[in-house]
């Protein structure tokens, strides 16, 4: 078990290292941030001064080394545009993103799981067809369109909900739905297929042969087992919702991390993009590590095989 955990931690560190290399060099391919911080026609001296100020005039490998050194000390650097430490900006936005992500996740599970179960037990029927349509729309409709339609209907025409910003529970409803629908669709699909797998298994047939009522077979024997992969996916999805709800947060002017990332990309603010991606990656790695360890604890075959 100890060897297994050490190996997993090693993989995590390697993943984070590769992520840091990728994002560091990838953002630099997008162009020179100095050209977005000066007015058109700025002199070469002005641009050079900005390069010097942000350390962009140093060799790339030196820049990367300094970036990693700061990272080890818990310093994500200072935003070019906001001239504020990235970690401070991240922490300012994190509560909003967590709130949005938890509500959106709650909605997606509330919608996705029951409809997935319903579709699996009524396969080929109305609910299955409805579920497929719901899934198709959820996965294919772009969230900016969903967001704008929601604003138009519930904010402009009906006047029930605020169009943008944060502050009250009402502000949460539309962005949470716009964000949650996509994930509700994926949760529904996974619940349906997972339930179908479980319903076809021998122990379910045995339960039925024993004469247990259908509701008990579904609720007690099938659902619990089908839920494991759905919850695993939900954990990863939650981290994604926290860190990369870029479109939804921008459309609804929700002051979260996704919007911070959008601003970072727009202004070629390298420290912001690097910081958000690294912290998001860190969260995903930690969640995965936790799940791996949990699996190993629950299922001895996993740690023995590895």
């Amino acid at each position, binding site marked *: 078990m100890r060897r297994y955990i050490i190996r997993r931690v090693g993989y995590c560190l390697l993943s984070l290292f590769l992520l840091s290399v990728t994002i560091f060099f990838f953002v630099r391919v997008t*162009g*020179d941030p100095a*050209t*977005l*911080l*000066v*007015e*058109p*026609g*700025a*002199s070469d*001296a*002005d641009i050079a001064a900005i390069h010097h100020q942000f350390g962009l005039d140093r060799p790339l490998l030196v820049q990367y080394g300094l970036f990693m050194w700061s990272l080890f000390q818990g310093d994500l650097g200072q*935003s070019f*545009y*906001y*001239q*504020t430490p990235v970690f401070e*900006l991240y922490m*300012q936005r994190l509560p909003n993103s967590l709130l949005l992500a938890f509500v959106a996740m709650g909605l997606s599970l509330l919608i996705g799981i029951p409809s997935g179960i319903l579709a699996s037990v009524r396969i080929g029927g109305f609910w299955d067809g409805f579920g497929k349509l719901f899934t198709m729309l959820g996965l294919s409709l772009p969230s900016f369109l969903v967001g*704008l339609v929601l*604003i*138009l209907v519930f*904010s*402009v025409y009906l*006047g*029930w*909900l*605020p*169009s*943008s*910003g944060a502050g*009250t*529970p*009402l502000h949460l409803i539309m962005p949470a739905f716009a964000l949650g629908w996509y994930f509700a669709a994926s949760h529904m699909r996974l619940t349906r297929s997972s339930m179908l797998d479980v319903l076809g298994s021998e122990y379910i047939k045995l339960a039925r042969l024993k004469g247990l009522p259908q509701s008990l077979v579904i609720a007690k024997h099938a659902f619990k087992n089908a839920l494991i992969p759905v919850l695993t996916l939900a954990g990863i999805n939650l981290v994604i919702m926290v860190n990369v709800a870029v479109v939804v947060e*921008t*459309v*609804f*002017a929700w*002051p979260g991390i996704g*919007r*911070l990332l*959008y*601003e970072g990309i*727009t*202004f*070629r603010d390298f420290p912001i993009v690097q910081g958000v991606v690294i912290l998001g990656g860190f969260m995903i790695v930690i969640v995965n590590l936790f799940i791996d360890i949990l699996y190993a604890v629950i299922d001895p075959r996993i740690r023995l095989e590895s």
Partner: protein
Amino acid sequence: MSSTLHRDAQANLLGNRSGMTRRDLLAATAIGLAAGAPAIARAAAAQDQLTYGIHVSLAPTWFEPAETSGIITPFMVLYALHDAMVKPMPGNLQAPCLAESWSASEDGLTFDFVIRKGAKFHNGEPVTAEDVKFSYERYRGADHDLMKEQMASIETPDPGHVRFKLKKPWPDFLSFYSSATGAGWIVPKKYVEQVGDDGFKKAPIGAGPYKFVSFKPGVELVLEAFEGYWRKVPAVKRLVMKVIPDEATRTAALKRGEIDIAYSIRGELADEVQKTPGLSLKPVVLQAPNWLYFPEQWDPKSPWHDVRVRQAANLAIDREGMNKALFLGYCKTTNSLVPYTFADYWQPPAAVYDPAKAKELMSAAGHPGGFDAGLLYCDSSYSNMAEVSLNNLAAIGITTKLQPIERAGFWAGYSSKKYVRGIVQGASAAFGNAATRLATFVVKGGPYVYGSYPDIDALYPQQADEMDQAKRAAILTKMQQLVYDKSIYAPIWQLGFINAVGPRVGESSFDRIPGFAYTAPFEDLTIKA
């Protein structure tokens, strides 16, 4: 028993010991949701507050006059937080503000400013000559090298007077000091030295009509009226500037009354605002002409070398049609690359749309069937304009292919002279006057000049050395006439920047300073009774 305990625990969590059930909780939530909707509209409509929906992310560097670049956007905040010695105001592009008056010596080497009595910073300290000198010397934005090179010394004979001594006569000193840079915007020396540059950006203190209250980077800026502002006490007590990046969301927020003023609403959304009762558009013509530029005109082998071809291209552009289709007619068509609001602007003959005459000119130039002009480079944000130009040019036989480039990349390519073939669709919203605009885009050595004409180049140093304003204006007029005669550019329009206001706004302070896109002066804002 356990159920009762559970219920009590739940009630305790709710801060209510009366024993609320789950059903009670749901009902209360529903009532709260229903009641909450109108409350939002009321919250936004606080009696003494105006709320802005801003189209760009507010940056702390905009609180700092010393870092002001030559673009217009930071002035959106500077006009509220800070004040300048001399700045553009309604009816006067060089209005005395923190400077009560000033005088220039006959030789043009000395400028004496008298500081306004009673002018003070938000911390109650008076504005002094030391603050003026300090603000000039710490300026590090665009043109700081120029400002430094020209200045011999700054003297402060007493707290109410400051004297700028130039190394040589510089007719544009006031233009640069009052609007093209942030050097004339005054910050409190003692406070800046006490808190440092970073501290100043976190909690700026200025001498403007509004005090800084709070700032969430990229989210919201809150300002409060400064009772001690010298010009007048602002009528609106509180301003909230919310960043709402999506244009459709800004429009929805305006319609719902969540915001009172929305910056930058374009196209169909502007039309929608126009049709909504209670809302109105406040278009502003920016000091930002757009144009087509023909960089091949200095190549004798190119069709563009013939002035008749360039004139034909100018005649082929349907500016009015483009204006109505893309900007609801709110742009101002022009035939000059110098904004009409700039000092020493020369009014050229009006731009004409005459494709028949354009075809005649093409035939006369030996291109009756037209020619392939290669690529039409443009900033991708304005590719809709370029598409119309492309079609207009095709109608007289000049065929091009559109090459939209992301904004920063486009400007980098334009200034590094990459677009030597084809056509360039350019623009400039930089501050300045006719001389600065010509220096940047026409005269040899300018950052966007691909070639130049000796007669125009020869006039440039003459105007720079001329201290007689009338004679200088005559030289600048001659230069602009030559630009027009040679059809170096095909100017299109000065861009219309469309803002929108809600029903609560009395005086919106839009379009009071010619060419300025945003609210200014802020102290004139009012809310309807």
